[in-house]
């Protein structure tokens, strides 16, 4: 529906820009004939606007796809790229077929073709170039239009390649330097912050060892989420642990130990005592120290770099507290 509405709108814009007054195949100027750049801008803006709108709405309507019957699903798969391509083609055609002009004689309708064998004095007194209205020498240079089209094509290709890379989980190379290091520092700081909040939760659970163990695990979950490994709704504890290990955020045996304690506390009625609580606290401490060491290593790397940010050491010390 959205695509169809966009295509119909594109047709309306194209008709506005290209409206022939002397036949369907005549490249007339139309009401925008005075301002070729306006026609270009309208066409380009329309194409990009339509593309952006479709991309935004696709996520909103994507949830309904599963409920489509297979026949309609196949029809949708065939129609969607066709309509998308149509939007772009219409924009390009609006540019290519437009008859650009700059002279003041272009405001009126073009004179009728020679129906009268005797030329009128007005036509005879006009210079040849004015008789032809918007002729080649008065149009925008062809190379300018082609350059503009080439630029648009390059931008579209780059955007498409980047989106495809991200969809397949590949990372677009980032510029080396301060930005990446700062992001890693922020991650480590968030991790430590989450671990510290777990310690506080541990202290606040009183004598309830089961709640304390679960609080420690929840703190580890928060820490992982802060580092970019959030728990998905369908994740089991093993799934989360596996993804965290894959991302390098669950080094050592502390995270598996804490996960095993959590499973027992959460899903069994086994009596939980101070030993379980102490084991969970130890595992959390170990995770905190590992993360602290990781952050220290980052700090050491940064000290060796020329653009070491001021105050980072103080921030780390604060996080450790």
């Amino acid at each position: 529906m959205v695509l169809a509405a966009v295509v119909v709108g594109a047709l309306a814009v194209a008709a506005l820009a290209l409206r022939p007054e002397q036949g369907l195949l005549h490249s007339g100027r139309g009401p925008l004939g005075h301002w070729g750049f306006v026609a270009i801008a309208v066409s380009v803006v329309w194409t990009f606007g339509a593309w952006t709108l479709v991309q935004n709405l696709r996520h909103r309507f994507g949830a309904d796809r599963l409920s489509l019957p297979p026949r309609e699903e196949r029809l949708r798969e065939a129609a969607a790229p066709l309509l998308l391509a149509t939007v772009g083609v219409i924009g390009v055609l609006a540019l290519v077929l437009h008859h650009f002009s700059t002279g003041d004689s272009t405001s009126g309708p073009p004179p009728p073709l020679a129906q009268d064998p005797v030329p009128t004095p007005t036509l005879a007194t006009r210079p040849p170039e004015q008789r032809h209205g918007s002729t080649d020498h008065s149009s925008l240079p062809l190379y300018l239009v082609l350059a503009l089209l080439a630029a648009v094509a390059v931008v579209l290709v780059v955007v498409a390649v980047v989106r495809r890379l991200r969809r397949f989980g590949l990372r677009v190379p980032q510029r080396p330097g301060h930005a990446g290091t700062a992001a890693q520092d922020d991650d480590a700081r968030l991790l430590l912050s989450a671990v510290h909040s777990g310690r506080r939760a541990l202290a606040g659970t009183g004598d309830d060892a089961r709640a304390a163990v679960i609080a420690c695990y929840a703190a580890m979950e928060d820490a992982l989420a802060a580092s970019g490994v959030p728990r998905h709704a369908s994740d089991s504890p093993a799934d989360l642990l596996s993804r965290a290990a894959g991302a390098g955020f669950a080094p050592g045996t502390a995270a598996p130990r804490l996960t095993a304690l959590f499973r027992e506390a959460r899903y069994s009625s086994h009596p939980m005592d101070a030993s379980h609580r102490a084991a969970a606290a130890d595992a959390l401490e170990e995770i905190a120290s590992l993360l602290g060491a990781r952050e220290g290593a980052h700090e050491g790397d940064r000290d060796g770099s020329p653009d070491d940010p001021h105050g980072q050491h103080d921030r780390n010390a604060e996080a450790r507290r």
Partner: protein
Amino acid sequence: MTTPSTNRLRTAEQVGEQAGAVLREIGRAVVGKSDALELVMLGVLAGGHVLVEDLPGLGKTLLARSFATTLGLDFRRIQFTPDLLPSDVTGTPLYDQRTGEMVFHPGPVFTHLLLADEINRTPPKTQAALLEAMAESQVTVDGETRPLADPFLVIATANPVEYEGTYSLPEAQLDRFQLRVRMGYLTAGEELAMLRARIDRAAPEAVLERLAGPDDVVAWRAVVERVEIDDDLLEYAVALVGATREHPQISIGASPRGGLALVQLARARAVLDGRDYVVPEDVKDLAVPALAHRVSLRPELWVREMSTDDVLREIVDGVGTPTTRRTAAVSS
């Protein structure tokens, strides 16, 4: 042979160790199929029947025979053919000229472990004869009901590719199997190890040691019955089963028996892991083998070569596991 601890109460940890030893022993004969072996062992522990579905030559029969040997179970095999009769499965009464009475001659179903080889090659009437035995552990012949041995386990094999001269198992009979196992091909390394092992032992098959007996299996199943499962995990299992009934690509969802099988298999997996409580991984990892053979896809998906396993995996990835925090307080 029965282990000395047969008659005393065992813990889940002890049963897990014993079952693990059995799996390791079977692994000497069935190379590189640890996942399939574990699933069959779960069927043994959970008291269900197992359908092994895959191409010929992948070790289905060897697997069944190895379990029978290592568990010390009576073993019978029925090669299902188009001319097999129900009485060939259950047994039949014959006239004894000496006594002048009809004497019941038990069929191969009167055993501990029955290998129903290529079960889809026999007509539905004979398949149905096995149905009662699988569902109720008893057979009725000439109006007389006879109980089967305890434990009674059916390992049925089916070839999913050949359709010529086969009779597809009806949904009702598929539902009787607690889980479906696919063997799959070996990796290159595993296949090399299998060939090397064959050359080294200078015999067609490895000679396996008997590590348990029928009483052990019964005792193991009693331990499974004592495994606890949290209410949140039961809700998770119900959500998985319910999702199969609402999925747009599935025409017939899993039955309530599917939910029962999933929970029982999850408890068995907990025991195999040495636990007496179920965790989310137990339910999640067993959803596909426990439910995939109980659902029917819409006909238009057949041409896309989609399998019920694929759809079930999609469902498992979409259904949320229990939250980290407990919904009901449990005292320490």
